[in-house]
């Protein structure tokens, strides 16, 4: 018994402490160094932030180049799938166009009415300058949904800026480097956006699920939420303006988490808009 324990200790000591042939660093030394880095990261040590920012700049560019083969495979898979679903897509488009033509006439009236009412309650909000950014990397890992864009602090990007795909919200900026930034997508588990569900004016929080949909949290159980209700930003918290469309509710009967399908395809982002919002001075 004690002999086998001795063997175990010797094997462990040899594995972790002994510097092996042709190894410049000892394993245990590097493990301690990693732990030190983790502790300093946790304490938000300034030097670590600078080092990380420097590494980010280099790695994002290299990673953009090394990801080219994978992106090409992705594009090919998408192209093949699109060919297979061409006829059903065409039929869906036809139906959507008919519906959009019907809705078009109501929209212009609603727009002018909306603008008049906003001025009336003195809550008119305007967009600041928009920045168009190219998506360098699209990290669709199961654990983190984020994108890297080619605009950074030199382009006046700041933490908290809204990231839009056309007019739809897709994320917010969480990390800014000199010439690149990372945006956390709304599908990420750590993303929490204050939203309003229309019609019904129900306030809620849209949480990412780690997949290609979101889930509603913290709303009144008596709320009347049903299929195809639209989810907009509520403007609470002052980060985003109210009324940016995000997605729509599906399967509300089966699913009490109120699955929200995003309007934008978060796996296919190539260019995005980075926007901040300010109140208009009347």
């Amino acid at each position, binding site marked *: 018994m004690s002999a086998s324990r001795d063997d175990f200790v010797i094997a462990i000591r040899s594995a972790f402490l002994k510097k092996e042939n*042709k190894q410049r660093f000892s394993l245990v030394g590097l493990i301690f160094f990693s732990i030190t880095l983790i502790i300093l990261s946790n304490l938000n040590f300034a030097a670590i932030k600078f080092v990380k920012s420097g590494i980010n700049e280099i790695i994002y560019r290299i990673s953009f180049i090394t990801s080219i083969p994978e992106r090409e495979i992705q594009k090919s898979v998408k192209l093949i799938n699109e060919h297979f679903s061409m006829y059903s897509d065409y039929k869906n488009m036809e139906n959507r166009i008919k519906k959009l033509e019907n809705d078009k006439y109501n929209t212009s009236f609603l727009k002018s009415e909306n603008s008049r009412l906003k001025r009336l309650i003195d809550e008119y909000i305007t967009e600041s300058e928009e920045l168009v950014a190219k998506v360098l990397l699209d990290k669709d*890992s*199961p654990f983190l949904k984020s994108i890297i864009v080619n605009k950074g602090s030199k382009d006046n990007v700041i933490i908290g800026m809204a990231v839009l795909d056309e007019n739809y919200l897709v994320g917010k900026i969480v990390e800014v480097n000199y010439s690149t930034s990372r945006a956390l997508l709304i599908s990420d588990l750590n993303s929490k956006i204050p939203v309003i569900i229309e019609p019904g004016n129900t306030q809620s929080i849209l949480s990412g699920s780690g997949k*290609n949909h979101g889930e509603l949290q913290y709303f009144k159980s008596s709320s009347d939420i049903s299929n195809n209700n639209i989810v907009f930003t509520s403007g609470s918290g002052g980060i985003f303006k109210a009324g940016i469309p995000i997605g729509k509710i599906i399967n509300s009967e089966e699913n009490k988490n109120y699955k929200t399908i995003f309007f934008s395809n978060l796996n296919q982002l190539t260019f995005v808009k980075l926007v901040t919002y300010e109140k208009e001075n009347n």
Partner: protein
Amino acid sequence: MSVQSKTSLFRKFLAFGPSILLFLSVLNEFDFNYLNYKYFSFNFPFILIFYWSLKRSQSLGYGFIFAAGLFNDVVIGYPIGISSLTYLIICGFAAYLRNITLRPNLINDWFFFLFTILAANSINYFLLISLFSIELNYYELMGNIFFTFVLYYLFAYIFDIFRKNIFKGKKND
């Protein structure tokens, strides 16, 4: 330049294969997520690091592994040092297995690999959740661990062929 020296140069380049593959995999994160199969993903660097630390540790230096971990943290957006620690723990487990193994057997290595990734991932996720309050989807994690374990067998088989052809005649540790 003679044909023989060209072949020798090519062999020297291939000898760096594991290191090159490690850096490409952390920078590129190729895990076929884009196929959008539910819960399907795997951690290729874990397989690569465990196999080469076990079979031929001089092909993949600890310094390289540490640097690859830093790169992975930057690419994924994790706090710096987390992946390096996980990768080095895997190296430690592989070195331990190498020390206690007299007659290598792929099935034994395979099940020890499962134990290793469960331990390494537990430490990784414990740090992410407790120190950095990052939320994780446990079903995705279990899927990732399962497929990493299953695919180890396949990749070990491929790496065996590579190792026997490229490093034949060279002595292991």
